[in-house]
């Protein structure tokens, strides 16, 4: 068929890397047929800093602050994954007190991460109000971090073998006060969004990724749980004493953007539940196990994965018996989850692309590393 100027051709549209809804510097090349998306291609690497290579020139302790800069929205989770991997390498376990504090801070960080996700996701969809409220609540979490370790975002809160800082006076009180104050706020977000007809119509049935596809792509985290698979590493292979806390894994069946929203909202409530249990029973004792100042792990390798707010975050460390790691490989949840983007947006409308990128909850610092 000969083409005339009236034929509809495939239109290639560049979205990003400066597009505000790509949550960083992601460039998505959209192939469009009118309003429909026929395919995408993601261009990543704009935020590449070579973190894994830096690790090879640093000692084990020195590398710890760098992992905070990967998923900077959930720096505490990153730090936890790294120190757990090194601890497995040198066969040390953190003290019970350190473990309880780690759980509290990581769960608070999960709340902070989900709050930022909710605010920006809602903003992408067109609901501006939740952003102001979620940032207000996130501020309280960041204040706890600041009081505890002196930094708000790139916390460097944990050290190999335990913690560096003892809890400050009033930590328990502050955390409890936050929990009490926070639950009504989640209800408030739900009031704003859950039943809102615009919100529902923009999200229900958009970006479906069923359980089989999730497994095929290796997608983890809330995206997987929204497709009905109750897979949470905190339950599946507990670390840091998570087996001692009671909490549920929220799941949903429809595997669409709306369900992922519901799952994340419920996760925040569950996190508060864990924090409440943990803060009520912080054991006494030392905060740091005995770890040599000059750390030379034996030759070997270790892989530890934890349930970060965005999915399975894994650290694979190879030691050759010297001061510096031979190789540090990170399995960032955002990168793996982003792979599913192409399948999710095929056949969707252009406006849904923004919703689908938002629902994957990606952080480009982690994707590009």
């Amino acid at each position, binding site marked *: 068929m000969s083409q005339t100027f009236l034929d509809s051709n495939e239109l290639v549209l560049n979205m990003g890397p400066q597009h505000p809804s790509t949550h960083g510097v992601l460039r998505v090349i959209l192939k469009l047929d009118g309003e429909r998306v026929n395919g995408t291609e993601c261009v990543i690497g704009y935020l590449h800093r070579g973190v894994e290579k830096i690790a090879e020139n640093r000692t084990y302790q*020195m590398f710890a*602050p760098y992992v905070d800069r990967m998923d900077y929205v959930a720096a505490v989770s990153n730090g936890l994954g790294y120190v757990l991997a090194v601890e497995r390498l040198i066969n040390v376990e953190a003290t019970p007190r350190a473990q309880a504090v780690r759980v509290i801070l990581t769960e608070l960080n999960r709340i902070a991460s989900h709050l930022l996700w909710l605010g920006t996701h809602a903003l992408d969809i067109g609901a501006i109000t939740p952003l102001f409220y979620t940032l207000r609540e996130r501020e309280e979490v960041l204040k706890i971090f600041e009081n505890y370790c*002196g930094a708000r975002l790139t916390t460097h809160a944990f050290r190999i073998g335990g913690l560096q800082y003892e809890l*400050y006076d009033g930590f328990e009180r502050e955390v409890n006060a936050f929990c009490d104050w926070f639950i009504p706020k989640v209800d408030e977000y739900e*009031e704003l969004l859950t039943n809102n007809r615009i919100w529902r119509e923009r999200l229900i049935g958009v970006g479906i990724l069923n359980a089989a596809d999730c497994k095929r792509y290796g997608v983890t985290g809330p995206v997987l749980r929204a497709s009905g698979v109750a897979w949470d590493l905190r339950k599946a292979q507990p670390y840091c004493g998570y087996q001692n806390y009671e909490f549920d894994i929220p799941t949903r069946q429809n595997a669409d953007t709306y369900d992922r929203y519901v799952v994340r909202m419920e996760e925040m409530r569950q996190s508060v539940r864990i924090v409440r249990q943990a803060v009520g029973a912080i054991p006494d004792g030392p905060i740091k196990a005995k770890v040599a100042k000059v750390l030379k792990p034996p030759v070997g390798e270790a892989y530890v994965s934890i349930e970060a707010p965005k999915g399975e975050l894994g650290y694979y460390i190879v030691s050759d018996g010297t001061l510096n790691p031979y190789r540090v490989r990170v399995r960032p949840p955002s990168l793996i989850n982003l792979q599913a983007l192409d399948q999710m947006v095929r056949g969707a409308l252009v406006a849904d692309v923004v919703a689908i990128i938002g629902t994957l909850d990606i952080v480009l610092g982690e994707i590009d590393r």
Partner: protein
Amino acid sequence: MIALLKKILLVDLLQGLWVTFRNQHPKHLYTEQYPLERPKVAERFRGAPRLNINPDNGETLCISCDLCAKACPENLIVVTSVRNEQTKRKDLTTFTYDTSRCMFCGLCEDACPVDALELTQDFELASYTREGLIWDRQMLEEGPKPTRYTR
């Protein structure tokens, strides 16, 4: 029927508006008017570095052990010293600290055996030049002097 009525009466949207309305009260204001209203940062805040001096005699507390420089992942601290033959100790001569590369991780502070190096609550470190970000011993002892703007 009820669902239809709810839909016509925009109950879901009004519910959201009511939340917004509840949050209108000025006591819910959280924005900090930064230069006018200065935040009170935490006691443990990791901000501008300071090299502590002994308040009694004005001498530096630093014993030139170089541990902070060795602990720093960015290798940005340079400590030089000369050996004092009388006391058989090292005397600090220069101490440079490149704040432009510092990530305020606190490892140097933890490494210091005598609490000479400390990350303080000052957080205004901006400078017009790159050289201005490299702090020498004097600057580290006196602390940053952020420009006060007047009209």
